[in-house]
């Protein structure tokens, strides 16, 4: 069975756009624009009985999951968040220099830490207290957890590249003077809020345009 190229184009655009597409936009991408009505009807028939259906709402077309199975289906979607810069820095210091006390972390970062920052990392499950340091005040020592290792996709802590390896891999490269200045400004920022980020793949790949 060979499928018409215009059928494929309509199918792919409707699928990839993830939102209703207007008839004009669809037509524009077709090779034989006059066939639009015919093609879209064919497509609608084709999907009539499937798990996804082709629907027209107003002047726009879109694929939707079929009503016939909506009771069976609950989709679990992940809402993605990134740690704030301050939290990421704190986590990286713990990862590399554990076991370590809060004041030692503050010392390295050169800023006082907000109350909840260690709690927050602990809530996510990436760090835990482990013993106390034998100095006045007996401060808690922090270490990373198994979950930390799993999440970051390494086998064990010794996988973390050392300073020379970071350098050789390009991490210590300064991107530009301006970037460095903002780095400092951001680093001293005590904001520990998470930046909520819904990433799409496009963001992911196109993001890099701005970084150089």
């Amino acid at each position, binding site marked *: 069975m060979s499928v018409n190229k215009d059928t494929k184009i309509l199918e792919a655009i409707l699928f*990839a756009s993830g939102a209703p597409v207007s008839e004009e936009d669809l037509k524009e991408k077709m090779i034989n624009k006059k066939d639009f009505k015919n093609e879209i009807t064919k497509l609608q028939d084709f999907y009539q009985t499937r798990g996804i259906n082709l629907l027209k709402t107003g002047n726009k077309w879109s694929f939707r999951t079929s009503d016939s199975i909506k009771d069976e289906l609950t989709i679990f979607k992940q809402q*993605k968040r990134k740690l704030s810069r301050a939290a990421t820095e704190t*986590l*990286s210091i713990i990862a*590399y220099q554990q076991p370590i006390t809060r004041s030692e972390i503050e010392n390295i970062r*050169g800023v006082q830490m907000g109350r909840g920052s260690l709690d927050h990392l602990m809530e996510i499950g990436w760090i835990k207290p482990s013993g106390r340091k034998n100095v006045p005040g007996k401060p808690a020592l922090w270490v990373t957890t198994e979950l930390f290792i799993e999440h970051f996709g390494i086998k064990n802590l010794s996988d973390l590249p050392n300073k020379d390896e970071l350098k050789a891999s390009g991490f210590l490269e300064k991107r530009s003077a301006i970037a460095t200045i903002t*780095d400092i400004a951001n*680093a001293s920022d005590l904001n520990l809020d998470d930046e909520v980020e819904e990433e799409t793949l496009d963001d*992911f790949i196109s993001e890099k345009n701005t970084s150089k």
Partner: protein
Amino acid sequence: MLNIDNDLKEINSSKQFNISLNSYEGPIDLLLDLARKQKVDLSEISILELAEQYIDFINKYHDLHLEIAADYLVMAAWLTYLKSRLLLPKEEKLDEHSPEELEEALKYQLQRLEAFQSISKKLYSRPLIGRDVFYGGSSEGLKVKYNIRYSSTLYDLLKAYSTILQKEDRVSHLTIAYSELFSVDDAIQRLKGIFGELKEWTNFLSLIPKFNFNKVVNKSILSSNFVASLELAKNGFIDVKQTSPFGNIFVKLKK
């Protein structure tokens, strides 16, 4: 047989020579390119000939006084050595590697790099998500439950740690630059010298020295002199008057 000479002439005349060496990923890449020009089948290339071409190429660069990275020179030196070994009559074991072994090693490396270069083109020309093919779909109309998931990656972590390492390298000493600003003490000394002659009311501004310093320094001269004059008035050394708000300030020696 080779067009390198012509290439060189062309490149030389169009001043693009540097760009040309930059387009190579290193000495082996350059060698590979020279080898490709010599023969399509790398297993049949003449290493001796290749060595000569490479040395020739590097020498021409040198003649043009263009900078050549050290590893290109190392390779040239090594190839010179290999060439001499290949040309010399066979001797009793000079060292652990016979010239044939060296030749074989070079061939292997060239062929392997060639293989990976072509495989990398193949790999990267596969339909790539986000470039050629796309994910899609929409969950509209379905029950969706959201889980919060932290998407911080190992890259983020390493980048953050690198930032800290950089800071440690960078911020070790805090140096306060020598200040060019004029102090109040200096201004008092100066005004005392001038006020000896000021029997009449004189506009304060006319007493400020006019230097062509930058704005900040000029302002500091003005303010230090102003504070100095208040100080002198407080001590009963001079009189100060101002007839209207923001008006001119006048000073004279106290009788």
